[in-house]
């Protein structure tokens, strides 16, 4: 019964979406307040019914209702509760419901909180959101119904791939989707602006909180996915340039560019059409990404068409959403140029450089991801593009970008004094070089890549802190005034320093793990001790343990430093009972300095076991860095100018619009 209600709720949600996607356009064109006010009402209705459907699906999974095909295929009674719930979005149909639910969540948020938006603009934004909802609800209902029944109902389900039964992966998809779908707001804002033919600083300020929220969620979502790959796949690697990873990384790169270019629109009323284009592209890449990975076959673009009817539907959505918006852009955007002029050396130019490099990086990743498909359809040749391509093209684009970050952040708007800025960064540059020498001394014979990475990381952190220090007059003003200035700084200023420094921490971690990893692969018997990166690892033996829905052999290790016990580390080989699949749980001891990463391999004869050991220096810095970047996003989101709401658009664009108290 509840399952049927869920199905019916989806149909009703589609009806609401159709209303939301049509009537407000008409209302906005006729400036009819009654018709325009249908938009928020329909958005809230759509949210309500999609929530009901989502809850119904969760209910079916939690109660293990095996008359529902989706539950049979992805669940079993033996799964712990958390994985019964996370299993809802661990499959194609359920993940689409989550996708639409988040879309409606954002739509409802605009409906409920967007009081400061002009009526016609708000109506059009919600109408575009409604159209996206129509596309996806129709896709779910016609090709991917999660509520399909199965008769006769089996006694037990097939279970969920054990590799996916993991707390990190339980929250990774919702975070990722918050990011992907959050960029739909940027898209809708851009489309509404194109229809209205007006982009001004107020528009950029309305756009900012949605883009920031989406960016923050996507940053954390990608980091969670990478962290999961790190501890679950058991290779000690963290990023594989897999098409699935690229699919989430491209919107992140474009979204990062969008965050930066929107600042120029907000402060200087320039780069308008470029910002609109970025808003469209960011969501387009999210759409492309959602679909490149949709069917659950992770290999490559061929995941796209596992079911021809689904593939066709997807392509149709892409053509209408991306092609339509780009056509509208080509028609309307040329009328929107103008605004503030700026000199070649200025903060605006710095942000243009940022955008050029980020856009080039996005294009590089897109090309690498689609190249096999393009080559295959044109020449019939079949290739795969791997990590070396991405490393060779992506890193050279990132180095100048990162080198420019602290400089750009200190440039003044309109016209800036580059020699002056460089002079003020002298100390940070010297300190970064000291860090480089320090790394060189400690790691005797580090690779060029490793040294360059640490130089960049130190430069980002120290340069960002220098910027903050300069702004509050540290070292030039008396302490009382420094404190006063510190208190007076807007939160967005702190947010920028936090996010940039977080990127520095992240780069330090990535550099250390990719260039400084120690690994040992060996056979051990109980009682044996081996050296690993300054520690000794003692193998204490293997015992059998039983988990909730698996049996495991637990390898026990003791970590010693100078013959003193530091920690015990366990690594398990699990066999999941329902799925009959083995998985490996690495044993990881994390410290700020590095991870000791142990993996129990196969049993050999007479109590001997294969064991793999890694020491990953500074590994935790990667997740810390991503977390710090996320905090930066949240701090920026709490900035006064966003908290108190954007003012109504002024008749003439003002750069310092007073916030309403």
């Amino acid at each position, binding site marked *: 019964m509840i399952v049927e209600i869920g199905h019916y709720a989806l149909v009703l949600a589609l009806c609401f979406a159709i209303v939301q996607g049509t009537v407000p356009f008409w209302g906005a064109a006729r400036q009819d307040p009654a018709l325009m006010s249908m938009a928020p009402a329909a958005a809230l209705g759509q949210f309500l019914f999609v929530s009901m459907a989502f809850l119904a699906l969760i209910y079916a999974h939690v109660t293990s209702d095996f008359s529902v095909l989706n539950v049979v295929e992805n669940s079993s009674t033996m799964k712990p509760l958390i994985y019964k719930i996370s299993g809802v979005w661990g499959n194609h149909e359920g993940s689409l419901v989550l996708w639409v639910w988040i879309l409606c969540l954002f739509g409802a948020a605009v409906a409920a909180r967007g009081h400061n938006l002009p009526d016609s603009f708000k109506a059009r934004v919600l109408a575009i959101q409604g159209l996206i909802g129509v596309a996806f609800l129709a896709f779910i209902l016609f090709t991917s119904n999660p509520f399909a029944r199965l008769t006769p109902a089996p006694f037990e389900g097939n279970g969920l791939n054990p590799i996916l039964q993991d707390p990190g992966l339980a929250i990774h998809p919702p975070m990722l989707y918050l990011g992907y779908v959050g960029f739909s707001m940027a898209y809708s804002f851009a489309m509404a602006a194109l229809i209205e033919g007006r982009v001004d600083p107020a528009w950029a300020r309305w756009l900012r909180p949605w883009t920031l929220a989406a960016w923050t969620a996507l940053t954390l979502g990608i980091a969670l996915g990478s962290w999961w790959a790190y501890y679950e796949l058991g290779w000690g690697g963290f990023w594989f340039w897999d098409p699935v990873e690229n699919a989430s990384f491209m919107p992140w790169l474009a979204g990062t560019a969008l965050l930066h270019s929107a600042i120029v629109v907000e402060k200087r009323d320039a780069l308008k059409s470029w910002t609109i284009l970025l808003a469209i592209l960011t969501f387009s890449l999210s759409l492309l990404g959602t679909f490149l990975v949709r069917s659950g*076959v992770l290999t490559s673009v061929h995941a796209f068409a596992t079911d021809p009817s689904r593939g066709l539907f997807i392509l149709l959505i892409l053509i209408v959403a991306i*092609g339509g918006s780009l056509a509208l*852009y080509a028609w309307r955007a040329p009328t929107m*140029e103008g605004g503030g002029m700026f000199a070649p050396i200025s903060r605006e130019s710095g942000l243009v450089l940022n955008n050029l490099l980020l856009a080039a990086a996005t294009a590089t990743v897109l090309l690498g991801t689609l190249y096999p498909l*393009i080559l295959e359809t044109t020449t019939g040749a079949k290739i795969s593009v791997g990590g070396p391509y991405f490393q060779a093209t992506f890193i050279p684009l990132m180095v100048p970008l990162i080198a420019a970050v602290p400089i750009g952040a200190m440039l003044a708007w309109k016209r800036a004094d580059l020699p002056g800025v460089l002079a003020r960064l002298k100390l940070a540059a010297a300190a970064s070089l000291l860090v480089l020498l320090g790394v060189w001394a400690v790691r005797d014979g580090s690779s060029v890549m490793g040294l360059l990475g640490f130089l960049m990381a130190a430069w980002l952190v120290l340069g960002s802190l220098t910027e903050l220090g300069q702004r509050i007059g540290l070292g030039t003003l008396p302490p009382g005034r420094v404190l006063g200035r510190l208190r007076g700084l807007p939160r967005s200023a702190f947010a920028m320093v936090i996010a940039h420094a977080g990127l520095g921490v992240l780069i330090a971690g990535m550099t250390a793990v990719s260039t400084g990893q120690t690994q040992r692969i060996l056979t051990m018997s109980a009682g044996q001790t081996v050296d690993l990166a300054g520690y000794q690892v003692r193998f204490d033996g293997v015992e059998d343990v039983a988990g909730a829905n698996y049996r495991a052999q637990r390898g026990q290790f003791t970590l010693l430093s100078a013959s003193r016990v530091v920690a015990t580390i366990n690594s398990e080989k699990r066999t999941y009972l329902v799925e009959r699949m083995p998985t490996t749980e690495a044993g990881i001891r994390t410290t700020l300095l590095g991870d000791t990463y142990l993996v129990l391999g*196969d049993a050999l004869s007479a109590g001997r076991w294969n064991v793999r050991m890694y020491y990953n220096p500074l590994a935790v810095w990667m997740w810390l860095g991503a977390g710090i970047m996320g905090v930066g996003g949240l701090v920026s989101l709490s900035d006064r100018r966003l908290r108190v709401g954007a003012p109504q658009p002024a008749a003439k664009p003002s750069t310092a619009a007073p916030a309403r108290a």
Partner: protein
Amino acid sequence: MAITHRPEATDLDRTPKSRWRWLFLLPLFVFVGVGGFLAVGLTRDPEKLPSALIDKPVPAFDLPPLAGREDGGLKTADLGHGQVMLVNVFASWCIPCKVEHPMLMRLAKEGIPVVGINYKDKPEDVARFLAEMGSPYQKIGADRDGRAAIDFGVYGVPETFIIGKDGKIAYRLAGAIQERELEENIRPVLKALTR
């Protein structure tokens, strides 16, 4: 739809900027190109081998063994001979390969011969992969430059081919073998071929 700023637009048309107007069409053209490739890609159902190779003999190849393995590598002559076999193209660096690995182990335990083509891999990485996950493969050919995989028409790893008793390719699966593919496609084909 209200287009409120029309006069302004015509004004701007006369500015020198209109020379660059075509630039605004560029994103659309790029997307049309990408969309075209996606559309063509869609019509080629990649789950199946191009019909040219189905029911044709296995392409000629001769791969050396992996360093340290004494199985003599893998070549065309090893396939067929009255036995139904699975040829699995895999690599240690490929995550989906790790996902499908238990399925291959299950098939191997059931007595279905599985052989491997190890695609663009380092010998020490494969050794580590097999040491930890176990080896379902009776024989493995090392395809360091990916030449044999190209002859098979492989898009990416993993891919699996079912070879009939006559040494002809009967079925191809692109992507990781999952429960559903195993039960709905692979087992029926195996059953039909062994009959």
